[in-house]
């Protein structure tokens, strides 16, 4: 479903921040993306959520070369991608309900359908009592749950999450990870950027390891494999 071939990325003619990235993500796969700060995780995520186009190489997504498709079609491709940003990027003038409803409204869903879907997902992430609250009045963890609800409400084909459990306590964190597992079982391809070694040890998924702009595809951590074997 996603294919990177010798992909390079540089900003404004500067040095390459990603060099010769090559990997394939099959539909329904689940990967962790990790690496030290400055390794290029955010840049790789930007390529994955089509915010940037590669400077060189090929990025294939949903059967299309993203550099070759028209801008309008790229917008429609983005509707099939859910993103949880590290800084949440919620719109402060909208309520939690309306923030979560955005992807469905953009996709042109009917108001009744939007209302039911948003209520359901917000109840699921434990924010039923905060539907009308502005994100400004929500805690970091609550904002993160709103961001996650917004990313998954459209049942995306590809879910990208940047440190999605960073601000959550363990209970909610694992609940969110379980949601991602469920989505993955339903066929959603998932890439989670994380520094959380415990999480990578707990869930048995392969890793995309970045270092200084170079990528290696690694198997799940040995602990995760061990836990899975049990």
């Amino acid at each position, binding site marked *: 479903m996603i294919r990177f071939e010798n992909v390079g990325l540089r900003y404004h003619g500067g040095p390459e921040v990603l060099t010769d990235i090559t990997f394939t993500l099959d539909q329904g796969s689940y990967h962790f993306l990790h690496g030290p700060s400055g390794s290029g995780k955010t840049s790789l995520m930007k390529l994955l959520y089509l915010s940037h186009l590669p400077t060189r190489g090929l990025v294939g997504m949903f059967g299309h070369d993203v550099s070759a498709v028209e801008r309008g079609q790229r*917008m429609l*491709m983005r509707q099939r991608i859910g993103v949880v940003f590290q800084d949440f990027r919620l719109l402060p003038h*909208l309520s939690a309900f309306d923030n979560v409803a955005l992807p469905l409204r953009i996709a042109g869903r009917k108001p009744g359908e939007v209302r039911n879907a948003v209520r359901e997902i917000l109840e699921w992430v434990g924010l039923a009592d905060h539907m009308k609250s502005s994100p400004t009045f929500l805690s970091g963890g609550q904002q993160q749950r709103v961001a996650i609800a917004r990313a998954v409400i459209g049942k995306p084909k590809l879910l990208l999450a940047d440190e999605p459990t960073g601000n959550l306590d363990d209970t909610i964190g694992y609940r969110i990870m379980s949601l991602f597992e469920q989505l993955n079982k339903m066929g959603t391809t998932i890439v989670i950027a994380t520094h959380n070694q415990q999480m990578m040890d707990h869930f048995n998924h392969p890793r995309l390891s970045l270092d200084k702009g170079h990528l290696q595809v690694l198997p799940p951590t040995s602990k995760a494999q061990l836990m899975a074997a049990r």
Partner: protein
Amino acid sequence: MLDTMKRKQRLQDLPFGKEDVGTRFVTLVIVMMTALATLALGGAEVIISMRSNWVDAIRGQVTIEIPATDQNGNIRNPETLDALAHDMEAGLKANAADLKAFQRLSREQVHDLIAPWLGQDMAQDDLPLPVLIGLSFEDTPMPARIGQITAQIHKTDPAASVETHQSWLDDLRRFSGVLLMASAFMAFAVVACCILCVSGAVNAQLASHQADIDLLHLMGATDDYIGSQFVRVVAIDVGRAALIGTLTGVIFLKAGGMIAGGLQAATIPAFSWNPGTWLSFAAIPAVVTCLCFVAARATVLRSLEKMP
């Protein structure tokens, strides 16, 4: 429930603040510009009405002057002038079927005409006054017909002159045409100013909401989706401002009309508030809003297209 649904449909994803300084500035500019456009349109209406009044007043009118002196410069006595006028009337009535009226001004009326220059105290019997005759025709005679009338008059008195007021009318037409062009230019400048202001404001809004727009793009919002939100806000704000501006202009015109009415000046026509006038005033906010709508849409789509 219906209310909730309507509220949802009207919901703006982007925070267009009413308190935004740029928005307030644009609103104020559009109020002033549309008020000016209304005044320009009112001025044009007055010019057209004035020109129409003057043209109507001299339509079909020809003035004959039998000079007080003959071709040799000898002063004619009143009896001679009376006889010439009488012969002229007889000749014209016999030969000009389209002549509606032959009206000779009395010596008192001619005296009144020149009194502003010579003073009321002049003794009219001492002055050699010309004879002035007003001819009324069905319509303003064409040059060929004027030639025939002149020839007929010259049979009676070769020194008599015929004035059709055409050159004065041509000057008036040229002058009013210049004024109308000035009004049209003013209306054009006003509309151009509104469009430039709206385009500038849209660009400023795009810059200030760049992060939010990027987010909507990342969620797959098309340029049309984002653009329609801008354009809807612009249309509402501009429409409201243009309406206020037009009303302000109309109030000014009403007040001006009342003052001009009080002047009782025959040359100043009364401003006519007919349905056509109201319709043209009503068109101002509609036209301004439509043009600003189109300008805002073009600006926002052009800018959004440049985004990744």
